[in-house]
């Protein structure tokens, strides 16, 4: 039955097109960019490959290091917040009745069906000074005042004499909110997959042996969900690290991430070699993150965790 697996012809015929595709449209362009990162601008458009390391040296300038650092911090916060919010959501979906589970999962991936740009603009509508978030807060403020007035405390202005809308947009917080919103499904889905496989009787056994709900969660659920946590973390961290639309639209002047700088090199600044060097530094960072995951995974395997 499985003879075709061993036939070289079939092997080549089926694996050649995807391989070609990868080589022509991914590896070769990537190599070109890599080579370019060792070049210099020659005039306005021409690039001379001189083997110089000047682009990398320039990338290590504190100015850019700070942007790298900020990107790491943003991506880190995004990952941690996604995990903290996503874990209860994934747990809730796993423990929901079988009838509700597909609907809840659908709700999680529903945002994917809308263009990122539209979703980001929608977030602007939510966060801006006269947006839904502030409307809601103002409504709460009004209600609070009404209650206070009913209690006879109306004249003291306990909640301030005027509602001050929060500055939610065009700052670092807005960027992290946007990144969390965009990447949340990437966290929830692997977590769900890991928790779904988790044998319920393990939790019951922990409770039966005297563990509190919280203790059982920490000592049984979290360790067994670790592969999902790591996958989710990687799936959120890497794209968040390289995102440029969200900081571009939601961020202020000082919330630029490394991808925004790279974009500027390729477009506005027209300095392709420097952009290429920055791109590759970002890629090395990404590889570092993946290596960490591989190491953690190997350790988990050695401990026998599934």
């Amino acid at each position, binding site marked *: 039955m499985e003879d075709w697996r061993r036939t070289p012809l079939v092997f080549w015929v089926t694996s050649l097109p995807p391989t070609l595709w990868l080589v022509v449209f991914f590896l070769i362009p990537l190599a070109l960019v890599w080579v370019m990162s060792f070049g210099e601008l020659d005039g306005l458009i021409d690039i001379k490959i001189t083997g110089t390391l000047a682009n990398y040296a320039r990338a290590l300038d504190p100015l850019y290091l700070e942007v790298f650092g900020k990107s790491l911090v943003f991506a880190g916060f995004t990952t941690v917040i996604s995990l903290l919010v996503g874990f209860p959501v994934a747990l809730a979906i796993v423990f929901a009745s079988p009838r509700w589970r597909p609907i809840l999962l659908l709700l999680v991936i529903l945002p994917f069906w809308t263009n990122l740009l539209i979703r980001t603009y929608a977030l602007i509508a939510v966060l801006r000074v006269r947006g839904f978030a502030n409307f809601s807060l103002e409504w709460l403020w009004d209600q609070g005042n009404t209650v206070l007035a009913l209690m006879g405390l109306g004249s003291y202005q306990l909640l301030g004499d005027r509602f001050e809308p929060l500055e939610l947009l065009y700052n670092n917080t807005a960027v992290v909110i946007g990144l969390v919103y965009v990447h949340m499904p990437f966290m929830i889905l692997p977590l769900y997959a890991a928790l779904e496989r988790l044998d319920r009787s393990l939790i019951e056994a922990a409770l*039966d042996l005297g563990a509190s709900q919280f203790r059982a969660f920490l000592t049984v659920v979290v360790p067994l969900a670790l592969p999902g946590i790591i996958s989710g973390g990687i799936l959120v961290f890497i794209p968040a690290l390289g995102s440029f639309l969200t900081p571009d639209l939601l961020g202020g002047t000082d919330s630029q991430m490394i991808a925004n700088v790279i974009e500027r090199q390729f477009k506005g600044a027209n300095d392709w070699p420097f952009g290429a060097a920055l791109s590759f530094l970002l890629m090395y960072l990404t590889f570092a993150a993946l290596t960490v995951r591989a190491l953690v995974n190997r350790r988990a395997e050695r401990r026998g965790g599934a």
Partner: protein
Amino acid sequence: MSTETTPIVEINGVSKRFGSFAAVDNVTLSIGQGEFFALLGPSGCGKTTLLRMLAGLELPTEGRLIIDGQDMSGVPANQRPVNMVFQSYAVFPHMSVLDNVGYGLKVSGVQRPEIRERAQEALALVKLGDFGQRMPDQLSGGQRQRVALARALVKRPKVLLLDEPLSALDAKLREQMRLELVNLQETVGITFVIVTHDQDEALSMASRIAVMEAGQVRQLAPPAELYEFPKTRFVADFIGSVNMFEGRVEAVEKDVIRLACPGLERPIEVEQTDTPPVGATAWAALRPEKIEISKEPPSDPTENATPGRIEEITYLGEVSIYHVRVSEALPLVKVAMANVDRVTRRPFTWEDEVYLSWTRQCGVVLDR
């Protein structure tokens, strides 16, 4: 061992409904201190549900559970003086064997050196003393089951609950583990409540057995009583193999019931104190090993006897089951005979015309 002194577990009119379906239906029973108690019944009869209610993993819809004199309503699973061995063992895959066994002590705040010592002790008890550093995936099914056992025993619960602990093992290992479980129970003196759908398991291990059907307890008795004096056709049929003759009670004289069965020439006579009324429909339940096969009719006229022809012989190793046609109107009668001799020298063979006979003390007449 069936010292029915003070009950350690009292189940009082307990029901559990999932929607309108009653998984456990008004069960009342009590389990004595130090008993080896078995819940036996077909799949889906509510055994696990009842056990889980004892463990606190499921809340009764109705009724009260009392363990060691304390009402369990409102007491969560992690505060009950019981521990459970799960059907799937539920051994934590990410912890070593020693950590698994020590888990219950650790979450109760026992000091490290004591945890080690007691966990090691519990492992020795289940003969896994040298396996503490292994991970669960490096164990066989039987060893994993013993880890689960040690883990549940280490906290010295008042009651140990076991949900089909042997169902995942092969026949040989199962038989061995039965013995080990019984020995272990005698060593530690903890009350065991075991769930099983394997009648051999229940008969060989338990001091008392509750037979369940459709969420209700049909009969609660020690194994021998359950086997010899089942109260209903369901119990008779579920425990062991049985021949059932339907008939009408013709007469009752001096504790001897005469049951006229269509298809049999003579009424079946059974000695029994507790008898159904004359005229009632009843069933005579007769174990295959209590029937004798002979070439001649029996000499004792008080013995039950009927002629028949051997239609089928099933070889089961230590016994053979002879399927005998006594009447076209009745199903084949099963008769078990020990294979004392080699099969080639069987006293009877296919198509032999024989007599089946059994005494009045064999079998029971049931009206349900």
